[in-house]
């Protein structure tokens, strides 16, 4: 029977692994720039972050809508493929790691540093024909493990209306503040913690808004993309392929409205909800799990906004999350709940600030917090799992044209989570210092 401290540490480690393992597979696709002859800056505030024109291009199914979108217009030598990789140096620091000593185990600060590589994304996307678009992203971890990060086809402008678009396959959820276009790349700062958060001890790995999911999505938008609404039906398997894995589904819904604020830019407000069910245990055959069952509810909902003050912009994101007590306690639903068990819930948010000096130079800063409002058991410390994260970086793009992208990114990120140190149960801090050479061609 694992101790509570071990459980906490395992939980924290799981959270860190979820975040660290999800090295951002960000999209900035020079193949599009080559196809249309537009510089990266036409679609990206600073790549991979989309600007209002790039968001419209994406929502139109990677089409400029100028009757030159079908591949039939392209030179046969055009190849809709781009690659991305980030050689880097980084230093990781964790202040409390259980280290074996003569007397047993003791907490110790551990630093590690050295040269490293990110994984590699192969980004292939575009149109198969007018109003039929696709994205295929075979992605290789830096250890050599290969997988399909994205694989979808989309039918655009059905009934000649921008309000009727359907996507099928494995895709990024319709997040305007997209983790796939996050500007930071370090282990700590390279993900939005809220997009992957689960309370300590919680077994729900399926409520992750930051992960690409398998399913189908309807998206509608006004012609100028100021109004957007989408609904997706997803398998609650966190994008894992092959049936059977779980017979549960989730939905992701979002709507937003943008406003033209003159010289300031285009501001946007919106709301989202991810609701569904996730399994709590697996059926086994000869001791091997083969089908996850015992579905219980979870939900994530909140609001977001993009606010522009000329070169300065703020991305705001808030979330209220809740899981069923069985998920919160990591308990199979065919077992009895302990007395007092309740749905764990939390609130969190982040503010990401960008100052775009010009399309080739951008400063990025982010503050993120998560506060537990209710633990799965009243006896658990109320602050257990509370999290704060800070990131500061800038990206400099020495070149900016329509053939390739190259950015140099120094970054420092710090994260602190309450009550998850492996032995003392105090707060655990981890930090990343990072210098990456991010290239995309």
């Amino acid at each position, binding site marked *: 029977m694992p101790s509570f401290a071990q459980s906490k540490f395992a939980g924290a480690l799981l959270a860190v692994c979820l975040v660290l393992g999800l090295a951002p597979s960000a999209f900035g696709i020079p193949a599009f720039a080559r196809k249309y002859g537009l510089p990266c800056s036409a679609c990206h505030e600073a790549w991979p972050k989309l600007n209002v*024109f790039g968001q419209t*291009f994406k929502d139109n199914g990677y089409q400029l809508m*100028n009757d030159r979108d079908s591949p039939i217009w392209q030179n046969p030598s055009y190849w809709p493929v781009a690659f991305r990789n980030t050689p880097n140096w980084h230093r990781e620091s964790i202040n409390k790691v259980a280290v074996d000593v003569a007397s047993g185990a003791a907490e110790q600060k551990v630093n590690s540093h050295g040269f490293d590589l990110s994984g590699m994304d192969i980004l292939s996307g575009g149109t198969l024909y007018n109003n039929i678009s696709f994205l295929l992203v075979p992605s290789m971890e830096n250890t050599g493990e290969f997988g399909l990060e994205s694989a979808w086809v989309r039918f655009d402008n059905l009934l000649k209306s921008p309000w009727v678009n359907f996507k099928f396959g494995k895709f990024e959820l319709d997040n305007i503040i997209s983790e796939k276009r996050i500007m930071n790349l370090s282990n700590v700062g390279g993900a939005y913690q809220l997009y992957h958060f689960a309370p300590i001890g919680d077994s729900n790995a399926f409520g992750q808004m930051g992960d690409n999911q398998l399913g189908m999505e309807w998206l509608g938008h006004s012609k100028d993309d100021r109004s957007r609404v989408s609904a997706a039906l997803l398998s609650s398997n966190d994008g894992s392929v092959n049936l059977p894995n779980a017979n549960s589904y989730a939905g992701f819904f979002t709507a937003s409205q943008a406003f*033209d*604020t003159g010289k300031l830019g285009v501001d946007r407000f919106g709301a989202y909800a991810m609701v569904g069910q996730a399994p709590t245990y697996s059926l086994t055959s000869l001791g091997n799990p083969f089908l996850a069952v015992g579905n219980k509810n979870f939900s994530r909902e909140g609001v977001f906004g993009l606010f522009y003050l000329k070169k300065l912009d703020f991305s705001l994101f808030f979330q209220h999350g809740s899981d069923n007590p069985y998920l919160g306690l990591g308990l199979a639903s065919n077992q009895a709940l302990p007395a007092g068990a309740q749905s764990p819930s939390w609130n969190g948010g982040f503010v990401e600030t960008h100052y775009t000096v010009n*399309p080739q130079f951008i400063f990025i800063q982010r503050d993120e917090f998560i506060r537990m409002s209710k633990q799965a058991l009243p006896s658990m410390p109320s602050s257990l799992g509370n999290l704060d994260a800070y990131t500061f970086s800038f990206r400099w793009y020495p070149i900016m044209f329509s053939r390739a992208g190259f950015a140099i990114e120094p970054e420092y990120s710090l994260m602190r989570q309450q009550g998850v140190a492996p032995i003392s149960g105090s707060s655990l801090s981890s930090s990343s210092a990072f210098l990456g050479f991010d290239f995309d061609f």
Partner: protein
Amino acid sequence: MHTRSTTWSLLLAGAVVFAFSAACWGQVTQYDEDQRMNMESHIGKLTGHAKDGKPLYQRFCIGCHGPIGDGEGENAQWIDPKPRNFTLGIFKCRSTPTGTLPTDEDLYNTIGRGLVSSNMPRWFPLTDQDRADLIAYVKHFSPRFVKEKPGPVLEIPPEPPVTAERVQSGQQVFKRVECWKCHGVEGRANGPSSDTLTDDFNRPIKPFNFHDETRFKCGETDRDLYRIFMTGLDSTPMPSFGDNIKPDEAWDLVMYLRSLQPMNTPEKAIAKKLGLKPINPNAPAAQSETK
């Protein structure tokens, strides 16, 4: 010896004069352009400023239109049709007579609408103010916008109701002003001149195929179509017919052209009901083209 030293002196003096002139010319040119950075655009209540448009131009436009607006951006060599050379101050989509400058609103609408069948996308996701600022910056490239005013805006009378007579009359206008020579007797861009057309820069250019496309370079409404042939598309072989077609006839021509396009329009239904056949350029003008 004396001759040789004189020659060298003359060459040296020439080189100095040339270098000095070039420097002066460069300074004057730069000075002119700097002066034009005060350029404004006025679209309704919006006022655009060239200095605010410069970073937008560098973000969105420079790849095709180039840093000095001459249409020689890094991607220009790959693009067909070629990007516009703003320094000439010549624009296709105008509400003003041929040869005159467009209004700011004409340019504003072009940026928002994009140019169909070209690499110029619709930039309407940008804010209205951004587009107004871009217009001011685009204008600053050409000294024409300092020396000249836009021509008078074409007055377009209200669109009359669609009738069979007007569709038939429009076909006769199509024949009389010889649209068919480029666009073909059926409007399929296969007229006898279609293969020989070039623009003002001697680049091959194709006429519009009415059967293939629903949108035009300079708009998609009936009023846009009216405007296109009454003002012409400067720098292309498409002339202005403002002097050849009366306003009422122009609406007739619009209705006939709409009957050719691949949409379900009232004009198309009328043409089908009439059994309207393609024109016969060799037939006498009064002869009906119906069954």
